[in-house]
């Protein structure tokens, strides 16, 4: 899957000796680690889907040829140290504030490609205001949202997206919706906002779904390159360690419980709806509002 149509696949420099020396003459590399990833070993637990998504993001950066003008924003959570994993410029943000930091970066360098990579606690709890407002402002950024229904880094507490009756460290009798409320469906929520160009929910429990996830992530980056508007990809993910399962079993739990609550699919796509960008779609939605229809003179 790496660089499928872009010709020769090559190893990153740091693997030339380690891996390259094991490749015989005449053998051709079919799939290799993307160049946008550094040699730093992910700090994720074995079998954690964060790594799969980090891989996809790096492949998209490679394939779009944008590493040199990309700035990534790391969150607080398990992916806090992803500033070490990507070879593009990176900023570590305070918990939940990645969309605001991304806004600052994008406003200074509109031609740069700015993405935030955030988990559910970061994006859907402490950073909900920043998320909703970056989206409604139509910030031309790309947001990768990892929803695994738990706080992983702090050891498995209830997340805003933890399912009803899900047992966590802070919902030891199961999430009691009468007290703790209901999970937040972020893709559905954001799809209602005018600044949003594209929202899709994907997962990564199988080859087929990972390929689909990559297509969505690439589109979210392409939208930014084309100036279409805010794009977010929610990746329904696992946390084998804090769910207390093997990586394989956690995929089954995801299929059994997560996907029925968080259905996969495209929740908004202004291009597919026939608009040039989010702004045009927003205008069409307010045809009866004269003030919203006023054209700005440049």
């Amino acid at each position, binding site marked *: 899957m790496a660089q499928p149509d872009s010709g020769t696949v090559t190893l990153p420099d740091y693997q030339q000796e380690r891996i390259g020396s094991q490749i015989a003459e005449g053998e051709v590399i079919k799939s290799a680690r993307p160049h946008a990833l550094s040699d730093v070993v992910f700090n994720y637990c074995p079998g954690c889907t964060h790594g799969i998504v980090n891989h996809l993001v790096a492949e998209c950066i490679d394939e779009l040829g944008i590493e*040199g003008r990309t700035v990534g924003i790391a969150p607080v959570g398990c992916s806090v140290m992803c500033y070490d994993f990507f070879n593009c*410029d*990176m*900023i570590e943000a305070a918990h939940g504030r990645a969309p*605001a*930091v991304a806004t600052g970066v994008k*406003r200074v360098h509109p031609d740069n490609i700015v993405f935030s990579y955030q988990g559910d606690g970061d994006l859907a709890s402490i950073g909900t*205001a*920043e998320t909703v407002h970056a989206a409604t402002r139509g910030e031309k950024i790309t947001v990768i949202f990892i929803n695994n229904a738990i706080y992983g880094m702090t050891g498995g507490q209830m997340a805003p997206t933890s399912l009803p009756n899900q047992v966590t460290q802070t919902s030891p009798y199961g999430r009691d919706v009468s007290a703790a409320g209901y999970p937040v469906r972020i893709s559905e929520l954001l799809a209602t906002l005018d600044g949003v160009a594209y929202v899709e929910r994907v997962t990564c429990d199988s080859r087929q779904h990972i390929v689909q996830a990559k297509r969505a992530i690439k589109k979210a980056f392409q939208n930014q390159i084309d100036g279409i508007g805010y794009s977010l990809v929610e990746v329904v993910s696992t946390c084998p360690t804090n769910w207390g399962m093997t990586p394989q079993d956690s995929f089954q739990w995801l299929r059994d419980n997560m996907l029925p609550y968080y259905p996969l699919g495209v929740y908004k796509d202004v291009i597919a709806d026939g608009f040039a960008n989010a702004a045009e779609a927003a205008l069409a939605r307010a045809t009866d509002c004269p003030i919203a229809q006023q054209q700005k003179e440049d």
Partner: protein
Amino acid sequence: MSDNTQAAEGRVLMKGNEVLAEAAMRAGCRFFFGYPITPQTELAAYMAKKLPQIGGTFLQAESEIAAINMVYGAAAAGARVMTSSSSPGVSLKGEGVSYMAGADVPGVIVNVERGGPGLGGIQPSQSDYFQATRALGHGDFYMPVLAPSTVQEMADLIYLAFDLADEYRTPAMILADGMIGQMMEPVLLPPARDPESLPAKPWATSGHRGERAHNVVNSLYLSPEKLEDTNRERFARYEEMRARHQRQELMLCDDAEIVLVAFGAASRIARTAVRDARAKGIKAGLLRPITLWPFPTKAIDEVVGAGAKRFLSVELNMGQMVEDVRLAVNGRADVSFYGRTGGVLPTPEEVLGQIERLATGEERLTAGEMSNGSARATVMGSVLPQPTDRKSSYERGE
């Protein structure tokens, strides 16, 4: 002088808050992120109007927290950027300021103070002295804090704040109050600088363009030794700031036995009280800190050395800077405090009453000594003109 400075006499009558905005743009600031709050509103409104005209960006954020994090992002991307707020809003910015300090990202934060705690009031106050000089956000850090007392100083000090922030890679604060912010005075604006002409920031996360290794702006250090090293390096920069950037104005301190210490709006009242005390033959003087951090300890030493016996800290709070005065005086003289809080301003008469109380039993000047011309303000290490000669430092070619 650049073409952008005003012609002829060059002075314009402007409101303090607007001067902060105008001078920030002249310092090369092209990005402003803020949230509405009284009494700093004119600053944001001015930015909203003017920044788009010079290719800059004004953005009203969803919260103070978002605003300071936008500042963090824009600053990390290499821009000169600022935010402004008033006391309750500045509390919310504490998180972002701590991250800026921890990641060595420069930026300017304006606090046009109002009364507190809580929602407090909207009248002038200096009750955020501790917050500004000690604890704006968690962790081991300081930042330069500049306290204007005139509209001219609003211009001069925000200009300086941007330079200090960039030079030391630190957030920097303007600690003003509603009185200076709302007041109109003639001001000579500093020359406009092209942001492109400012020193490069090779550490910025602006996209590596395939020309360098990737940059990371970060405040996370999981190794205690590494975090300690990072903090020690930052504190070395703080020491340099303490050595090089203490600023204050001394007025009538050469022979003063009673020295008032006051900044910002309080210093304007104290100045009148000191003059009135001199008229009554009391050897009073005024030490006006311009940098609240670093606190002008060297000037305190000097004044103690010159024979000051009593210090009176005059503040618009319940007594905050007085602690720094005590630390600097270190037992060599008496230190007392007089202040009003909640937005109430003391009258010069009230302050004079305090001076007279302290002076009881002190030797008084004779009328003859008063008229010998020694009653003249001196400015030490200040970008400010002497009160009797209100020329800006730019006009004087400094």
